[in-house]
């Protein structure tokens, strides 16, 4: 069998979950032997060149581009995984949920303490992604096959999950992997 192909993306996330992937330390060398990376910030491939076996996504969806990106991943990945709190629940960015977008804009770009006193402007370039009314968890937009909890999920958890998937074994989240304090 050829090597499983993996793609990853960070949507409305902080890249912390990707850092956690890198935190598997020298096992990254094993991983490279085990899988082939396609679209991912890890190898900087920007567009899908083939169908992937596993897609790992950190971050929820806060704008239109996130949504399109996510749908593109769903189209190209056989198994799609929500990685981390932001992907699963919206995480920190979802703190704005419940506050009207208009008010968020005003606070961030017009009235906030860091806005240039001479006056701010709400970004309106037509080519910018459009902000969504709230931050959405991934599974509300596309079907998600598995969820890896944590902020970020530990390197150990990601490693175990990936190797289980590659070996075709069931994913088991033991207590030590999901105990966070």
């Amino acid at each position: 069998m050829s090597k499983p192909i993996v793609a990853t993306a960070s949507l409305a996330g902080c890249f912390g979950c990707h850092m956690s992937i890198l935190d598997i330390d020298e096992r990254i060398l094993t991983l490279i032997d085990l899988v082939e990376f396609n679209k991912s910030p890890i190898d900087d491939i920007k567009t899908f060149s083939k169908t992937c076996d596993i897609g790992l996504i950190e971050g929820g969806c806060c704008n239109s581009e996130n949504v399109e990106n996510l749908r593109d991943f769903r189209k190209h990945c056989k198994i799609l995984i929500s990685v981390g709190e932001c992907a699963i629940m919206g995480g920190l960015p979802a703190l704005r949920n419940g506050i009207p977008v208009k008010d968020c804009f005003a606070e961030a770009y017009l009235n906030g303490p860091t806005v240039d006193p001479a006056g701010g402007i709400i970004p309106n370039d037509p080519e910018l992604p459009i902000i969504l009314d709230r931050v959405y968890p991934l599974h509300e937009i596309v079907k998600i096959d598995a969820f890896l909890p944590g902020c970020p999920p530990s390197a150990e958890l990601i490693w175990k999950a990936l190797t289980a998937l590659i070996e075709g074994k069931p994913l088991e989240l033991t207590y030590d992997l999901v105990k966070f304090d």
Partner: protein
Amino acid sequence: MSTKAPLDSLLARHGKDPSGLIEILRDVQAALGSIPPEAVAKIAARLGLSRVDVEGVATFYHFFTARPAGTYAVYLNKNVVAEMKGRAEVARAFEKAAGCRFGETTADGLIGLHETSCIGMNDQEPSALINGVVFTRLTPARVRELVAGMKAGKETGKLVKKTGDGANQSRLVRAMVDNNIRKPGPVILAPFKSGAAVRKAVTWTPEDVVAEIKRSNLLGRGGAGFPTGLKWEFCGREACPPRYVVANADEGEPGTFKDRVILTELPHLLFEGMTIAGYAIGAREGILYLRAEYAYLKPRLEKVLADLRAQKLLGKAIAGKKGFAFDITIKLGAGAYVCGEESALLESAEGKRGAPRPRPPFPVQNGYLGLPTTVNNVETLCAAARILERGAGWFKTLGTPKSAGTKLLSVSGDCRKPGVYEVEFGLTINRLLEMAGGRDAQAVQVGGPSGTCVARGQFERRIGFEDLPTGGSIIVIGPQRDLFDVVRNFMDFFIEESCGWCTACRVGNTLLRQKFEKITSGKGTRQDLKEIEAWGKTIKAMSRCGLGQTSPNPILTTLLNFREKYEARVDATRDYVSTFDLEAAVRDAAAVTGQTLAEARHE
């Protein structure tokens, strides 16, 4: 308007004990129409609390508002039976006549329209509280009349046209509430001569009184069904007196109103039950925790207490028994269903937010002010008094082996004779529906939202601890109703009333509600049904108190008993359906920035 003078003189009428905080806030709200920040600061300074302590309490209860609630503060019940009885038109009539929407106050501050959870009037819906005065059986025409009266500046009490039956007519009550006693019974709704039980009790030792209650197999009537005798024994055994007796008159479970009828017609029986509990456990003080919605009964209850003192049935040397002193005070709530939960009730009685305590320790060990306390439902205490009077043997001849005695049922909804029925345990739903005139029901909600939704095919099931326990709420759901409307109303109730402590209850119920909407709007899948069941179980397991532990019941019991209704709404051919709508999700932002999806896609 300057709020200074009335605030100072009002505060001066209260002591400096923080346990009086809710009474102070009630007075401030009544006098000023809100609890403004300057009042919070003054109260905090006076009671030696932090501003946040006071604010925490002031924001916890429904009937406290930070913004003016209106010279006439209208609280319209939003319970499901009110919906069945035409609440929507009544609400529209209020909005039209007053000139503001629900959740708002008119520009001149005269009328405020608010929604509230069940106010204990299910047998005479739609109903509302206006400045604490109850208005029942509202119609659009009656609403227009009421609003005209408010605009003419009439006193709220004067807007009551006709008083109800029995003691509702008494000078101290004058409420338009009807008792609707449909079926009296041998234990509670029977003639009772004040003093008959306590005079007998004091000839026995407290241990013998406890033994008699234990022998009667009396189980708590508030819902949980804990053996009353055992509770009293545990409490009496705790070393450090003083101990307390608390009567739970919070009656917040939507659909129950039987304690209202006891408090109206048989308060002396309740007080006698409390006195006997006091004798049994060795307490000198009792507290009646009365829900704010029933504050209209307080003046008369105070009068009954005064009469009992005059008859030496309260106070010192009760019924001639040297050394036996006991008295009762009334504490009012301020609108919060969770305060019916016994440990939340105690917090509230101490003047705090009504957040349930972790248990153990239980109230019998660590109750009011940290002292040993028995908390009992109003009906339980009444039954205890009658057991003392008539004997445990007599009591046990009623009901079934595991559910001795009778139960007061509050029957409402789609039936011809809503009201209170005292029935022996073991009664079938069929028989009850026959009595109440609701035989064509498609379902019966037994035990309120936290109970069970029983389907038509199961109407031979019996009321009792063996099968269908209930605190007394019975809601008949006629064939014309959409059962999902009922479930939705119940879920909204729990979301509204969660105290917010446990994530599972605070967040979980909202997620359940969203999932339920997804399914009922035809966008659900089998997977969603599975998830809703799994989440329901998680919420039950991860919640601290009975509210969260039962909040998924509207969904779980209908999933169990009406599964076909859910199956009919899901798309069995697909394993995933998204409700996400990108066009709709970008609308708000696009309105501000002028962007379009096409351009953002670089098309």
